[in-house]
């Protein structure tokens, strides 16, 4: 178990700001921790191991009366995101409107995983999306599709809850900065981070991940 230092901010004046804004000034005073990222192994024997293009993610956590916030910042040379057309009406008059744009592109994304039940002792859930005795909640932000809460009790069990959560993102100068408001991420709660790099065709278990950390 690693312990992640974080800054506890309780100032009312800070609360008045918008901590969801990745450029908000209060993030400058929150202690940043650089977490090492690892690549998942190839899914198929024919897949070559993916290069470690993103070696780390800078992580900041703040707990304030308004909620628990995480800011993730990582360097990514490629800005892999798409503005999708609105899914409203395939037909306009007699014409079937062209809405499809690509079949082979993937989006940059990130996620924070936390235990769904209070953890007692030092034993964390399995890093592979929890286990039957230790379910997890996963707060996923996708640069194309936005934020979604998932739940899981192990690998291959991830399921959307149908809920979203507040998140904001900025991409500038080859870096992503994403802030997530995660109610479950109370002080002392273990969490793990995942990053997906769209240009490396990352999705699902093909990704970057950290080990468990704890915000205290």
């Amino acid at each position, binding site marked *: 178990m690693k312990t992640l230092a974080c800054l506890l901010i309780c100032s009312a004046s800070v609360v008045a700001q918008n901590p969801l804004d990745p450029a908000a000034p209060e993030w400058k005073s929150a202690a940043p921790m650089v977490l090492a990222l690892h690549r998942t192994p190839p899914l198929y024997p024919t897949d070559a191991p993916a290069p470690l293009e993103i070696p780390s993610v800078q992580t900041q956590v703040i707990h304030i009366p308004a909620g628990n916030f995480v800011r993730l910042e990582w360097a990514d040379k490629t800005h892999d995101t798409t503005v999708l057309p609105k899914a409203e*009406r395939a037909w306009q008059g007699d014409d*079937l409107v062209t809405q*499809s744009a690509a*079949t*082979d592109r993937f989006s940059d994304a990130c996620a924070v995983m936390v235990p769904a039940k209070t953890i007692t002792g030092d034993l964390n859930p399995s890093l592979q999306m929890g286990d039957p005795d230790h379910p997890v909640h996963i707060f996923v932000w996708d640069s194309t599709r936005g934020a979604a809460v998932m739940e899981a009790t192990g690998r*291959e069990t991830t399921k959307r809850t149908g809920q979203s959560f507040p998140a904001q993102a900025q991409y500038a100068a080859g870096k992503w900065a994403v802030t997530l408001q995660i109610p479950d991420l109370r002080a002392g709660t273990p969490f793990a981070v995942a990053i997906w790099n769209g240009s490396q065709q990352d999705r699902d278990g093909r990704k970057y991940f950290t080990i468990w950390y704890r915000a205290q």
Partner: protein
Amino acid sequence: MAQHQISMVLDLNKCLGCQTCTMACKKLWTDGDGMDYMYWNNVETRPGQGYPRNWDKIGGGFEDGKLRPSELPSKEDYGQTFEYNYAERLFQGGMQAMPQEEVRNTPNWDEDVGALMLGENYYFYLPRLCNHCTNPACLEACPRKAIYKRTEDGIVLVDQERCEGYRYCMKACPYKKIYFNELLGKAQKCIFCYPRIEKGEVNACAKQCPGRLRFVGFLDDPESAVHKLVHVHKIALGLFPEKGTEPNVFYVPPFNPPRTGSYGKSVLEDPRMPMDYLKYLFGDEVIDVIGRLEGELHHAQSGGTSEVLQLLIGRDDQVRYQIPKHEDLIQIQGAHKA
């Protein structure tokens, strides 16, 4: 493991390339958001690049029992849609009817560009749909277990709730018959018209086919036309058997006459269509099938009655389709279990 397997046999000698099946499918299933480029059923001219472009060359399926995923086809590989300048041509005159943009690829490119080989022309149409394989590579590849094969009829479906659009299935399918709906973030494919099948109705592509080339029924039903064509007469083969997925869509291979000047000879003796090309598509067994078809043809030409050719004529729906209603099928299954 499916307890029953519904199947389709397509007689390639009867396909007109009219795309009525394609449009029947399109109008029924793929006219929704994000589905504009999808043809769950398509008809491609062979030899040719196919749809998506070079799907047969890029990989997929199994080798030595292990998945061999391919690269993902790009949007350009599926071809572009375009309009013609009909309004200008009709109302202003003085110009050719031309596409409004440069056309680089279409869903049946080889039909659009055409080519002539003087003297020995040959070609045929290959209608394609999901093969609802016995050993589906797509199902094997999906890390979310979003793809399942129904026990009652062997139809392979993508659970749209489970699917997260990871596209491992697209990479794994050797036939490239799974499509990505980018708008919805879901993989989508031919559903073998299961809502129709459950009512005892044949698939829309088969129902609308003017060439009457499709036969539909259960492979394990000894009375079905598909069973007879595949297992009794052994004249229908799956595409790319070496890919290891055991497809359940079968084809009666094209039977072209011999080359010019070889009238009266066996088609195998001086084939107009290179047998290597047919072996590439259907495996080595296609040579035996061509031999059987030729034998049946000679038998009929010499005044005999060929049960095979009579069946292939497929005069009416009762001959071509044997589809029990779903509730009857469930009862049959229950009886088998008891």
